[in-house]
């Protein structure tokens, strides 16, 4: 046991020694290749004697250098890099390993060929995809994703049909990349009898659809599978085509909530006057997620948030919708913008800002206003906000105002005003 332990530790040191030596040789070789590629990209010729590419590690180093340049290269430089990749025999070696290498070598080869945009290896990659075990499938799908070749679409869909993978996202991602600018090649598969195929293709179309696809998409809005309907709703919205309005309108009353959700999102992308009413109507949906989506979507159409807040507060009385809209306003910095403009010399800007703050106070959302009273550098703004709190906040502001008094950053005048407000027995707040 002692001997075993000693031998083991000695082996570890020996291994490290060998590896370090090997790494330093690799580093030297890498520098050499970097110089060669640099010269080649600057238009100079290749040296008469290039370093050896006999062994796998030698080819791997050369490849690493090419791939390193690839990331930042221009189109012209990429063409040159690809030509070097082929001239040095790296392409043929990779292609051969795609068929005959071990699992890892196959996966690595697929990715290298994909990254180097070797479109002529597409049949090899698709062939490998159909027969490869799952570890390699992921790499091949990534390679197809990197290639982004529309010719791969049919092969990818066939892969879905034959293998029915549990994990469809890599296929979807590859379909999206391959379908960019070639959505017409995806459309025929929307009629496929297999729901899995329809759902994945519809999801891909939702990302790459073009306005000319609307007519072909509309029949699929009545698909039996809600997944497909939801994706079609998304795709129709992405077209931004007014022709899609009626189909989306039908989807907006779908019995399944996530189909309605996608339809509401789709509405927000179609610039038609009728959309406002539909979105306002969707704010009464039975599902809170749909109401929330409608509240945030409508914000894109109606630039006057005061009007929207009023409608939600008075007509719908829906907490989710109200909070969703206010969250959007906060995240987009609209409330802070209103705070900053509350003393604007332009009366219209000033009034709009004041109205928004008043609406927030009426909705009992005090955070933005009180935060500004505490931290805003402009004295006039703080005073104006306190005036609005006094006039519009109501008695529910008492507790947050009380809390504000504990702040150490509150200025003396604001503190006095708040104390006066709180001292009033019945008046607001």
């Amino acid at each position, binding site marked *: *046991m*002692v001997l075993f*332990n000693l031998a*083991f*530790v000695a082996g*570890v*040191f020996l*291994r*490290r020694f060998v*590896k370090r030596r090997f790494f330093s040789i690799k580093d030297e070789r890498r520098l050499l290749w970097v110089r060669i590629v640099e010269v080649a990209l600057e238009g100079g010729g290749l040296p008469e004697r290039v370093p050896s590419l006999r062994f796998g590690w030698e080819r791997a180093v050369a490849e690493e250098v090419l791939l390193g340049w690839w*990331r930042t290269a221009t189109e012209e430089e990429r063409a040159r890099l690809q030509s070097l990749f082929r001239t040095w025999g790296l392409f043929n070696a990779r292609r051969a390993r795609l068929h005959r290498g071990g699992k*890892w070598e196959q*996966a*690595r080869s697929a*990715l290298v060929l994909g*990254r180097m945009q070797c479109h002529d290896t597409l049949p090899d990659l698709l062939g490998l995809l159909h027969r490869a075990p799952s*570890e390699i499938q*992921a*790499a091949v799908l*990534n390679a197809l*994703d*990197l290639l982004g070749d529309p010719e791969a679409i049919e092969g990818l869909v066939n892969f879905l049909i034959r293998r029915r993978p*549990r*994990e469809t*996202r*890599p296929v*979807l*991602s590859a379909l*999206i990349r391959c379908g960019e600018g070639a959505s017409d090649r995806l459309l025929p598969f929307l009629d496929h009898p297999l729901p899995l195929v329809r759902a994945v293709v519809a999801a891909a179309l939702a*990302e790459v659809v073009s306005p000319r696809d609307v007519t072909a998409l509309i029949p699929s809005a009545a698909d039996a599978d809600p997944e497909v309907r939801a994706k079609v709703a998304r795709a129709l919205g992405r077209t931004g085509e007014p022709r899609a309005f009626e189909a989306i309108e039908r989807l907006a009353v779908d019995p399944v909530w996530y189909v309605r959700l996608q339809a509401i999102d789709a509405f927000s992308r179609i610039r038609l006057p009728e959309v406002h009413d539909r979105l306002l109507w969707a704010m009464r949906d039975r599902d809170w997620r749909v109401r929330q989506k409608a509240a945030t979507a409508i914000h894109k159409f109606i630039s006057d948030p005061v009007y929207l807040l009023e409608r939600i507060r008075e007509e719908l009385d829906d907490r*989710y919708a109200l*909070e*969703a809209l*206010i*969250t959007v306003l*906060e*995240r987009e*910095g609209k*409330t*802070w913008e209103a705070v900053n403009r509350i003393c604007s010399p332009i009366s219209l800007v000033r009034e709009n800002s004041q109205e928004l703050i008043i609406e*927030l106070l009426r909705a009992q*959302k*005090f*955070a*933005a206003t*009180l*935060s*500004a009273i*505490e*931290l805003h550098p402009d004295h006039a703004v703080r005073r104006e906000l306190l005036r609005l709190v006094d006039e519009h906040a109501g008695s529910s502001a008492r507790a947050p105002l009380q*809390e504000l008094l504990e702040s150490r950053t509150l200025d003396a005048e604001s503190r006095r005003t708040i104390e006066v407000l709180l001292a009033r027995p019945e008046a607001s707040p």
Partner: protein
Amino acid sequence: MNLVELIFFLVSGFIITFYALFYAYYLFLFLVSLYGIGTQPRWARLLVPEQLMGSYMTPPVTLVVPAYNETATIVESVHALLGLQYPRLEVVVINDGSTDDTLGELIRSFSLRRADVAYHARLPTERVRGIYLSTLERRLMVIDKVNGGKSDALNAGINLSRTPWVCSVDADSILEEEALLRVMRAAIEDNTVVACSGIVRIANGCQVADGRILRVALPSERLAVFQVVEYLGGFLQGRLGWSWLNGLLIISGAFGAFRTDILRAVGGYARDTVGEDMEVVVRIHRYCRQLRRPYRVVFVPDPVCWTEVPTRLGALRRQRRRWQRGLLEVLAKHWDIFFRPRQGVVGFLALPYFALEASAPLVELFGYFFVPWIWWMGWLDTNYFQLYLAMAFLVGIVFAISGVLLEEFSFRRYTSWRELLRLLFFALAKQVGYHQLMLWWRLEGILDYFRRPREWGEQVRTGFGKRS
């Protein structure tokens, strides 16, 4: 055979069986990890970050960062987190009622303002005093809440997150630039993954600037080097093995990603235990197994989270007591799934292993008294005992250095000869003194379990930037 002899026979048998089982587990995990470590780094090299950055499949992630009295490091940490390489990222910092100026630092550095953002308390937490948005960085949100402990803070962050994945990160930790992308790769490639985590390494001794590790080095403090050895063993040997078996029970609170819906469905982090990171994973296992859905909880060894470890005995003692107490709390809470067929690897292998580990200090302490007693009684076969001791010691050494070896075979972050020698030396030296100290603190942890003190596990932070 009289009664005393019978008791002696039974106790000896128990101790030998206990250690045999323990070593069998270790050996099994070591072999599995050796296999995993042999293949993992190669597959990890296939990752194409630019592809994942622009991929449709890369899910949005919210980094949930609980902070309690972290003035020294919080701003630097948040800057580093916002600079991570990940396409759709939000950062939610939760100021858990800090008594120092953590919130003030954040307000000043990121120009925070209080905002009315929808916050639905799906997971119950202590009162949220306010939510802050940054006027400089739209991806940053800060929750200010009443102190409720780390779990409570994490739950508040989960409540605010809107993304399908959340990742808990300690405020004093440093993630490598590609760490999140690498850890999420597991989820991107397999949609059954519900939780995943990376390795936690020790930042003491490393050169740090602007929340980035510039140079990896071993710490000069001996106590920290012992912990480096421990962490290497714990992560590369233990977790990799359990992950391979889908029996991983610990996803480090310092760096662990979860599917938000699953985390919400299981009720978030438990607030009644200090071992919340382990407890939540056990509940996730239970939940998924109950639903009979395919799922995986995985450990990926190449994404690195660097963290500061205690260099003072007092702080280390508190930490180890807390860990031991947390382990016992989790085991007590989930004792009902031990050896349940439906719980598979978790019920049959993982939990029993942790039960063995939790009780190891007691058995070892018992051994320290039992052996002299049987020697005094004249029942000890000295030749047999010497052989047993030598075997145990040598096997112990192999297991002690196994973590260092796994590191050497895979990632080799410590590059100099001196560091390798130091690591091996400390792995061996750990058996004498340090191991016994741990044993004592873990015994104290067992006592704590019965007394149940409540604390956040405070540690004095020096701040990475200042140290470097």
